[in-house]
């Protein structure tokens, strides 16, 4: 009861705010006739329908909010990554980098010696997992720099008094590979003091590092959200098993020199596979990597806004129908058609103005909520990022605000034009009870337009991607949605006709009357159902995509990774969050009773043609023995033999993205330069949506100079006790290495959970779209109840009980839900096809057979129908509460 009162009070306050604003606008416009009409005609009407006014404003607010939130989240994540790059790069003119496992530090001298290079310094950089029980899962950016070299000092200021002291007497600091300097903000957060021990996960297990100083919160100290630590790079090589590798060389060119020309000289010295680029170019590559995720979020938010547009269109349509008589009087009194159109459009504009303003505020709050989820997805799937601040500016908020206002104005312009079209005589006709609208037998203009849109969508699918973006496919999805909305009146009529025989016999009079009411105000029912349709279509297309992806991925795991146990460190599944383990674990694992074979897997980030991809190194003999690889080009046995001899296998999406095929030769950066590899075949591999290269572990160790392992995959002997082996491994190494030992089933469950996490934000967007659509159901049914006050009064007078009246309206809500679900499922299935075979194929290069998650589609359908019914509960209560005697006299 209290919640209801609270909601009512909140609704009242919201409506008052909206009305105050409209009143203010009317006052400002008083010198014009339109302003006077606004005050005398529109405001009383908006006052009369306070709930509808509030819901409409809320709908547009949510649409704008989601759009703004998504843009802010995208911008914040990218901005945070860029800021980290900038903070760390300092004054570097150029940066030299190679593949994910780094390159030999011996190359440093070659680079330093290139004419025109003024300063150069080596850098190691990775994220490290803190093993402090006070901060489980806390990660930090660990930088290995040449703290004592003069050159490094040129690039970065560390703002650390302790470091200044170390530089004066460095020997003690350099003596141990476990000395570290951490950021002041991290120290404050976890209460670390000078010379406290900082436990970190390393390839050789958890090690304690000695805190020698603190970096203030500026420059390097604020990188990665302030969670940052610095070591001497040689010490970091030892502590983290990096051998002689470095990740980057920061370069400054001599004053007045041409940085680009010097960059080309460095490039010529090192080879094509090295990146010699300005630090901001790195940002572009990172941005490219996230383009799929960002596009998905943007599409979801645009759809939410689209549903908001449907809502305002619906509201204005209802308002126009209910004011038919009033508009007739105005027209009879000499108000022109143009003035009527302008007045209704102005109302939509003002509601859009308030809704968009509110949306901007909600959007900033929503961004804060969404940020954690999206950045976690980025962390799981792409790269480590720590986003602590929202990044937005006035232009972004203004843009979102204006988009909302324009959308609301356009959405109300069509009902406004319809309102002005009939003659005053037509609009002044009265109706004792609403007449029944006879279904149009012939094709309408909307039917033809819908067919044209579907045809256009089909044509758009043939448009090649523009600037790498599947623009044609996205436009085709929009065409399908709009076409579906235009056909919704037919869906309503079809559902009504098909249910009529059934409802004549079953489900009671209430259901029958509810069904009979569906086509009476066809435009209103169709508009409401269309909004639901868009939300359901979004959810369905997503279920098609996720279902197809998940099924394909699980099948791939079953065929290609059938190991019994998976051992990782620091994260349950190897990826950006895991900490690679020492190769020294291999022998004891092979010797563990019950273990037949052990496959070592290493996955690193690398680049191909300046685009980030994954390089996967595995023990090919074990892989070939146990995996059933789905080869698209080549034959497994022969390809594996080639891999042993130094070839690479490319994944299907790699092949599609770069046009690389069996027999081609590709250049990759290795530890000491560039090397050409033959492509042994093309296989199905879902390791990364960026594309994956598979090499034999021996080849990897030889050319990349890295022997660490991300996952040990254990194949047990026949009859071995899985749990016993797991217990044995965990007991011996689990504690010291922070290991996760997962069974095959758990591994798959973990992959599923990561996918769910990755798509969680999309589900939030779906939910918002559906909430907005449901607001439309409440709106529409309120209008329906108001239109039928007298009819409901008659029904009550002749013996309809309150509960029967409630049931009638609730069933009507559910039937509107069924209309939305019917259209939405069909359009969503088609949009899912577009998403799967056009948008996804362009963005990830992955081909997944069309295998929707029908259970999820069904759940969404049932949920939407139930929620639509639930949304009808309040209008139903109002209908049941009508005073019969008053209702009978209602005009």
């Amino acid at each position: 009861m209290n919640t209801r009162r609270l909601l009512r009070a909140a609704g009242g306050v919201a409506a008052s705010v909206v009305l105050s604003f409209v009143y203010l606008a009317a006052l400002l416009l008083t010198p014009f006739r339109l302003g006077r009409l606004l005050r005398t005609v529109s405001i009383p009407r908006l006052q009369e329908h306070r709930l509808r006014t509030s819901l409409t404003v809320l709908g547009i607010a949510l649409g704008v909010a989601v759009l703004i939130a998504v843009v802010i989240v995208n911008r914040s994540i990218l901005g945070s990554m860029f800021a980290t790059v900038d903070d760390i790069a300092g004054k570097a003119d150029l940066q030299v980098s190679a593949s994910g496992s780094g390159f030999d530090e011996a190359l440093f001298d070659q680079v330093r010696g290139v004419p025109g290079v003024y300063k150069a310094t080596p850098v190691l950089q990775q994220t490290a997992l803190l093993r402090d029980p006070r901060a489980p899962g806390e990660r930090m950016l660990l930088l290995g720099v040449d703290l004592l070299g003069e050159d490094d000092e040129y690039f970065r200021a560390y703002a650390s008094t302790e470091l200044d002291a170390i530089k004066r007497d460095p020997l003690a600091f350099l003596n141990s590979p476990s000395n570290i300097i951490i950021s002041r903000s991290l120290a404050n957060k976890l209460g670390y003091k000078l010379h406290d021990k900082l436990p970190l996960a390393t390839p050789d297990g958890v090690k304690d590092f000695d805190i020698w100083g603190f970096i203030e919160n500026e420059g390097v100290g604020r990188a990665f959200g302030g969670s940052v630590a610095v070591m001497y790079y040689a010490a970091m090589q030892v502590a983290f098993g990096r051998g002689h590798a470095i990740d980057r060389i920061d370069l400054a060119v001599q004053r007045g020199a041409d940085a680009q020309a010097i960059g080309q000289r460095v490039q010529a010295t090192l080879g094509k596979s090295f990146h010699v680029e300005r630090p901001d170019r790195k940002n572009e590559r990172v941005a490219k990597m996230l383009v799929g995720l960002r596009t998905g979020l943007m599409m979801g938010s645009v759809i939410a806004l689209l549903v908001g547009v449907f809502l305002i269109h619906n509201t204005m349509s209802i308002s126009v129908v209910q004011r038919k008589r009033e508009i007739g009087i105005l027209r009879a009194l000499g108000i022109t058609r143009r003035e009527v159109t302008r007045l209704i459009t102005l109302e939509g504009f003002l509601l859009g103005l308030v809704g968009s303003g509110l949306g901007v505020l909600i959007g900033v709050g929503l961004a804060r909520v969404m940020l954690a989820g999206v950045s976690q997805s980025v962390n799981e799937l792409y790269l480590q990022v720590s986003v602590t601040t929202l990044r937005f500016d006035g232009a972004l908020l203004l843009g979102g605000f204006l988009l909302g206002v324009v959308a609301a104005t356009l959405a109300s312009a069509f009902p406004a034009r319809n309102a002005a079209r009939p003659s005053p005589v037509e609009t002044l006709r009265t109706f004792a009870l609403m007449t029944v609208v006879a279904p149009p037998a012939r094709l309408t203009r909307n039917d033809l337009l819908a067919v044209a849109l579907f045809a256009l969508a089909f044509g758009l699918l043939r448009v090649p991607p523009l600037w790498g973006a599947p623009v044609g496919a996205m436009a085709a999805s929009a065409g399908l949605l709009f076409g579906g909305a235009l056909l919704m009146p037919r869906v309503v009529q079809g559902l009504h006709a098909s249910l009529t025989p059934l409802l004549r016999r079953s489900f009671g009079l209430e259901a029958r009357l509810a069904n009979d009411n569906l086509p009476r105000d066809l435009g209103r029912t169709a508009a409401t159902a269309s909004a639901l349709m868009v939300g359901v279509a979004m959810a369905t297309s997503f279920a098609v995509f996720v279902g197809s992806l998940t099924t394909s991925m699980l099948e791939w795991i079953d065929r290609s990774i059938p190991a019994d146990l998976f051992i990782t460190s620091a994260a349950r599944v190897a990826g950006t969050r895991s900490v690679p383990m020492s190769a020294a674990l291999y022998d004891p694992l092979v010797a563990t009773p019950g273990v037949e074979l052990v496959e070592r897997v290493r996955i690193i980030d690398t680049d191909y043609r300046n685009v980030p991809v994954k390089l996967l190194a595995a023990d090919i003999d074990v892989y070939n023995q146990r995996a059933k690889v789905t080869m698209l080009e080549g034959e497994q046995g022969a390809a594996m033999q080639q891999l042993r001899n130094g070839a690479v296998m490319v994944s299907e999406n790699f092949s599609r993205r770069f046009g690389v095929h069996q027999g081609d030769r590709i250049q990759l950066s290795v530890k000491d330069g560039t090397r050409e590899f033959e492509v042994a075949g093309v296989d199905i591999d879902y390791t990364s949506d960026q594309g994956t290269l598979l090499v034999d572990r021996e080849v990897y160790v030889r050319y990349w100079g890295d022997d660490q392992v991300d996952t040990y995959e254990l194949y047990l002997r026949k009859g071995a006790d899985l749990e016993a082996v797991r217990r044995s491994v965990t007991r011996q190494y689990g504690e010291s290495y922070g290991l996760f030992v997962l069974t095959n089933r758990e591994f798959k469950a973990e992959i599923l959970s990561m996918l769910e996490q990755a798509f969680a934000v999309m589900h939030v967007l779906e939910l918002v779209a559906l909430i907005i659509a449901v607001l439309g159901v409440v709106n529409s049914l309120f209008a329906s109840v108001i239109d039928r006050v007298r009819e409901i009064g008659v029904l009550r007078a002749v013996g309809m009980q309150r509960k029967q009246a409630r049931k009638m309206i609730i069933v009507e809500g559910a039937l509107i839900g069924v209309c939305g679900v019917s259209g939405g499922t069909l359009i969503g299935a088609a949009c899912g096809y577009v998403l799967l075979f056009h948008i996804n194929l362009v963005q990830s290069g992955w081909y997944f057979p069309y295998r929707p998650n029908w259970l999820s589609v069904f759940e969404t359908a049932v949920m939407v129908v139930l929620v639509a019914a639930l949304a009808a509960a309040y209008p139903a209560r109002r209908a049941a509460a009508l005073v019969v005697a008053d209702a009978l006299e209602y005009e």
Partner: protein
Amino acid sequence: MINLQSVSKTYGEGPTRVEALRSVDLHIAAGQFVSIMGPSGSGKSTLLNLVSALDLPSAGKIIIAGQDVATLDDDALTLFRRRSIGLVFQFFNLLPTLDALDNVLLPVMLERKATQADHARAQQLLIEVGLGARTLHRMHQLSGGEMQRVAIARALVLEPRLILADEPTGNLDSVTGGAILALLRALCENHGTTVVMVTHDRNAAQAGDRIVSLRDGCIVGDERVTRAAEPAAGASA
């Protein structure tokens, strides 16, 4: 059949307070046809609303068919209305989405799933009101008089002991209105149904056995109607 004891009904409070009925006493015996007359604002509609259990009195007691309506909650009142009272309105108030037969069956369908017997009875009622050939017609396909006949058939379908009619001829031409009155009269005479009709038309009121006149919420007249062999055949709206 109907017993009103000191019934008053007031609307609003303070300066807006209106006394629609003032301590009205009225007894209507079973099988009587009573016409309620009076100018606008005299309390006719209020009286009808109270007798039809659509509203409750501010003071006094209303007993219909032995049932004190004030003791019933909303659900019970609704069921009582459905089963014991047939209502006929000036504007017919039929559902446009249903055909004539289903409009007649409406109270039955609110009560239970309509059986073959219910269909047969509704069909028979439509025949009795002269619409046997129009059972499947929708409301927009019927004339005003035909719609009112459907409304009367609807009022009779659950065989109520009481028919309440609010200006049943108010929206009809004189010939059609006369036919409707004859139908109500026949109900009373042939089936013993009690009929209470509100009208502002003296000629129409003559169709009843009694004419009760209201003015300013009080009964100011209660006269018996003496009629010749053919009652009120020429009554006009």
